[in-house]
């Protein structure tokens, strides 16, 4: 179906179901219960899940397939955001021209940076991309203030021309009238579920982005990209020019980043330079590795995982902790809170860092490998068979990825 193998169709189906039913799946706890703070089914966070999922899927096409580790992809995200906001300022709040320009600008920008950076490989490539991204950040922050509005960030003012904006159209980014911030809430017993236009708009793009990634992974082009990662020398002596392959992968991933940046601006029409900072570039690297670089679903899982931590763990403060341990004697309660305190709230990075280390050390294939290992434990035949069988099973799983 859709030109996919059975396994890939299944994977795409899982992603479609998960994204469409996310408002239910992410809100498992009743609104008034003590566990409600673990609910992630509110529009703002769900939008982040899918937008950064798109960003990571694109990054994975470069890093997962060719092995070229870019530390500057946030620059393309930022370019996408700025382009989108400029379209809002000049034309109208319609998101279509904004997203089109975001993708085109990010593509052009990544073609330029990629053309220069890809003259080197390995650590030198990473450093070059990092340098370009920091240059872009500094340009956006200070030198290019007329275009980027410097440290205030680019936003939309009532004095902006908006030549195509009609009087009755919503004054918020919208798709032909459907405003991105409008939503419907469904009350079901103690549960509340929110369905936002913005989330579903992003979800459609995530599904399309994921489908395109599957097609690329299974194409001769995708196979050549994996060959680049495996042995460039053999490629050159097999009559293949590696440079356009890597550049194409770089530009495609840059355009994914531009789309993600455009969507961020469509959900909240402002763009700041901090979106291009190197920590933002590092984040997408973490997402991809945590989920499983080179796998299809891994980057989406990694993006969801990190964004969940960032938003949910960061909200757990001392008051919440005291509430949890209230059943304990006073002294013990204070001790428990003191122990856990550094790992939650503002210290969520610490937990994330520890988890990242555990994954890299024990599951080099990321969360996807963890899932595969669990699957193998349940399938007794594979785990109990001799080493040859186990090896074959491993290869089968890898080939299936």
């Amino acid at each position, binding site marked *: 179906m859709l*030109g996919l*193998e059975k396994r890939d169709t299944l994977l795409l189906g899982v992603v479609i179901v998960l994204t469409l039913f996310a408002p239910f799946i992410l809100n498992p706890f009743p609104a008034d219960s003590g566990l409600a703070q673990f609910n992630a089914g509110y529009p703002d966070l769900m939008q982040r899940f899918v937008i950064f999922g798109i960003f990571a899927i694109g990054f994975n096409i470069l890093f997962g397939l060719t092995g070229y580790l870019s530390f500057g992809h946030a620059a393309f995200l930022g370019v996408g955001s700025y382009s989108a906001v400029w379209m809002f300022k000049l034309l109208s709040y319609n998101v279509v021209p904004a997203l089109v320009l975001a993708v085109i600008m990010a593509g052009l920008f990544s073609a330029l940076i990629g053309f220069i950076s890809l003259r080197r490989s390995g650590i030198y490539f990473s450093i070059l991309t990092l340098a370009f991204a920091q240059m872009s950040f500094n340009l956006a922050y200070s030198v290019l203030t007329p275009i980027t509005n410097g440290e205030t960030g680019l936003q939309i003012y009532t004095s902006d021309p908006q030549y195509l904006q009609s009087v009755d159209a919503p004054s918020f980014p919208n798709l032909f009238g459907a405003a991105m911030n409008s939503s419907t809430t469904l009350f079901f017993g103690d549960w509340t579920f929110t369905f936002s236009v913005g989330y579903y708009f992003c979800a459609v793009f995530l599904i399309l982005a994921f489908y395109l990634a599957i*097609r*690329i992974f*299974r*194409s*001769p*082009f*995708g*196979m*050549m990209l*994996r*060959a680049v*990662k*495996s*042995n460039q*020398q*053999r*490629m*050159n*002596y*097999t*009559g*293949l*020019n590696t440079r*356009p*392959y890597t550049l*194409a992968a770089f530009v*495609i991933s840059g355009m994914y980043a531009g789309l993600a940046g455009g969507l961020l601006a469509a959900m909240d029409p402002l763009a700041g330079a901090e979106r291009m900072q190197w920590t933002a570039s590092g984040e997408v690297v973490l997402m991809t590795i945590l989920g499983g670089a080179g796998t299809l679903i891994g980057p989406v899982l990694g993006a969801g995982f990190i964004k969940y931590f960032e938003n949910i763990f960061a909200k757990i403060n001392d008051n919440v902790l005291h509430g949890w341990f209230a059943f304990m004697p006073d002294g013990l309660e204070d001790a428990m809170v003191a122990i856990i305190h550094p790992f939650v709230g503002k210290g969520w990075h610490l937990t994330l860092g520890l988890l990242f280390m555990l994954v890299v050390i024990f599951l080099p294939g990321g969360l996807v490998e963890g899932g595969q290992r669990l699957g193998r434990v349940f399938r007794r035949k594979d785990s109990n068979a001799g080493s040859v069988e186990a*090896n074959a099973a491993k*290869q*089968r799983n*890898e*080939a299936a990825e």
Partner: protein
Amino acid sequence: MAILEVKNVGKRFGGLQALSDVNLSVAENSVHAIIGPNGAGKSTLLNCLVGKLIPDTGSVMFDGQSVLGRKPYEINQMGISRVFQTPEIFGDLTVMENMLIPCLAKRDGAFQLNGWSRVVGQQDMIDKAEEMLRDMHMIDKRHMHAAAMSRGDKRRLEIAMCLAQDPRLLLLDEPTAGMARADTNNTIDLLKQIKDERDITIAIIEHDMHVVFSLAERITVLAQGTPLVEDTPDRIKGHPKVREAYLGESQDAA
């Protein structure tokens, strides 16, 4: 008729004259061996043929066209395939994928942005790759990761990948280096079979005299960057200059 014509090639690395005034002519559909003691310049010469190095002087003509200044992938597309001393294959890919890549490179050229078509849809290429694997008795290994194979199988796969491109000239750089006797004999048989079944010219650099004398129709002896003699294997065996070059080497080694 000569398919490869090397004229007055010289190459200097700093103070070392690696090659000087090398003339070599490889006849079409022949097996030509280049032998010589360590440091004679065999590998430098090979690298000058495939575009890895550019000679300081002289010319290298393949089928009437100069290869100088062309990139390795361009020279490969002209019809020269190279087998490396240590097998260069795509270790992370399956054996089947390893075979598909040269087939696609032959059909689609140096670059093709076909991200929308499907590998499983390239039936003609898959058939070609499978036929090649069958010829090489590797069809049962097609789902294996190439890195997991034995060294002998890796060598066999690399040769199969080169042949899948239907090259006119196959360059082999010490194809049996580090191999056990049995693997060496298998490789010799394989190369004999290739020579008998295909219209292909083979140029081989080799240390192992057993391999050279079992395969070569013509031998060039290289010493200190210049060709010493070029003749048939029978005449090379007893040639005093060749003995001198090799004896000199063994005395140095002792």
